[in-house]
């Protein structure tokens, strides 16, 4: 550590866990240690799976949406049979994850996804869900007052557009394929992918050519 003549002892609070360990953390640790001890899993296999989940980010989804906007045949394949279409774009190892269904917005129908019972989410494409997606406020309100919730995300839709709130509580996970924004006719798929954020693929925001 370089010495510059100043003292930095009080710069920040000591880094330590301040919250007591919760009941579920203890339960998870106990089960994990038992599984390792009994040889059902190895610590390495668990960490590899965590790394695998952490490596998934919404970028994969953005590229898939951008391709669907620029390649009609791909769009049709993606909607009709998502698994091979996702694999084409590098989203593989789908067998151990719930199936994904792609729902396409139209001029008069917009989709927004929620899991009212827990936090089902297309993790295999988008990675870990945002904190708000798991909160009771979003899960209870978006099925009751979707227009208000969307407005809080900065998304206003005319009454002529039906908002379809899809509660994904069963075996399928949902990805929203929004409408391609106006003014992007000459954009490449790479440029379009930049517009497609995580929230857009959940359906709480709309893509805009800023």
């Amino acid at each position, binding site marked *: 550590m370089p010495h510059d003549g100043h003292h930095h002892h009080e710069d920040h609070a000591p880094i330590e866990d301040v919250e007591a360990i919760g009941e579920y953390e203890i339960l998870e640790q106990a089960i994990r240690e038992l599984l390792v001890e009994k040889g059902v899993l190895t610590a390495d296999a668990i960490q590899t799976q965590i790394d695998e989940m952490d490596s998934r980010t919404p970028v994969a989804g953005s590229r898939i949406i951008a391709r669907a906007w620029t390649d009609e045949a791909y769009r049709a394949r993606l909607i009709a049979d998502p698994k091979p279409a996702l694999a084409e774009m590098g989203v593989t190892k789908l067998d151990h994850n719930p*199936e994904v*269904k792609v729902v396409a917005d139209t001029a008069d129908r917009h989709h927004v996804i929620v899991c*009212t*019972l827990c936090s089902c989410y297309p993790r295999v494409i988008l990675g870990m869900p945002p904190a708000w997606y798991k909160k009771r406020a979003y899960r209870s309100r978006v*099925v*009751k007052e*979707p*227009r208000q919730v969307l407005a809080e995300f900065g998304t206003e839709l005319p*009454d*002529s*557009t*039906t*908002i*379809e*709130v*899809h*509660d*994904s*509580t*069963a*075996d*399928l996970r949902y990805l929203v394929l929004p409408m391609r924004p106006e003014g992007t006719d000459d954009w490449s798929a790479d440029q379009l992918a930049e517009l497609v954020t995580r929230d857009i693929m959940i359906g709480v925001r709309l893509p805009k050519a800023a």
Partner: protein
Amino acid sequence: MTATPKFQPGDLVLVDDRDHTGHCRTPTFVRGRKGRVRQMLGMYKNPEELAYYKDAAELPLYDVVFEWREVWGEDGPDEIAADIYEHWLSPA
């Protein structure tokens, strides 16, 4: 086990209003409500049994669309869709 799906796209169905203890994937806010089958999504093991390591039967899973008034009792431009296993549905 391969069962023949009881419902076809366009069929009006009623979600049973029964109580359920334990793991269950039918949201309470659509129980006792009528919706329209849009699509049969495939055959899936009954999560109510699967969650308890039982030899779960495969059931048809349907994409069911509900009108706003039917769910919330007031008119609205929007709709709710939910995925419901066949053993929660009857013809309406």
